[in-house]
């Protein structure tokens, strides 16, 4: 954890960019899951609904974890 306090602004910004990239990929995955699930559900196939919901919640959990890391980074610069 101590190494986090020695990060300069440029390093922090690079980390934030990396986190944003990961979050964007996860959000696009969730969007794909939502459209595919909606299509299947409206087509009468409910078998994929809950597995897709769980996958989407896992993505949300990862995103929240990454956001928490962003806040930790922010706190470390004060």
């Amino acid at each position: 954890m101590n190494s986090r306090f020695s990060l300069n602004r440029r390093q922090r910004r690079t980390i934030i960019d990396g986190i944003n990239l990961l979050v964007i990929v996860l959000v696009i995955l969730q969007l794909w899951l939502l459209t595919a699930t909606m299509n299947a559900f409206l087509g009468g196939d409910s078998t994929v609904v809950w597995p897709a919901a769980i996958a989407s919640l896992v993505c949300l959990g990862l995103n929240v974890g990454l956001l928490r890391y962003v806040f930790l980074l922010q706190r470390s610069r004060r």
Partner: protein
Amino acid sequence: MSGVEGESPRSFPDGRPEEEQPAWIRDFPTDIPDDDYVARREFTKFLVLTSGGFAAGQCWIGLKSLGEETGPLPPKEIAPLDEVPVGGVVEFRYPNDDVPCLLIRLAEDRLVAYAQQCTHLSCAVVPDLDQGLLRCPCHHGYFEVDEGRAVAGPPRRPLPRITLEVRDGTIHATGLERRTT
């Protein structure tokens, strides 16, 4: 707003030092990299909020699927077989009054029936039997009449098919079959 100790205090988009910047920029109390950093952080927050929205939508679909009625639908009488000529179309509602459907007699021994709502945005499709199509006038979606599959326009899913039975010379609807392909 100046930088953290050990880091360069301020930097500017054109890369020139602070003393070479115009007065209005020097007086403007914004640390540009800091502002940039905050914007990225806000963007991350917005993305995570979006992610939460997608997850909530996914759960909403799950809850809707739990409330779906399962099991066979009750049969419903549509029309006597001899009152439907070849090429004739009969409108009916099945399984309840909210779902308009079309019964089409394609040949002497071939009957098909579909829910009339377009799978794009639920406009009513109209038969165009000369072309062998069902046409959605709202966004020009087309379904072929033999199987109800989408052949052109925005809809991707086929029309829900109504299963039919002829009992004692009368056509009955016996089920609703939603399909993805």
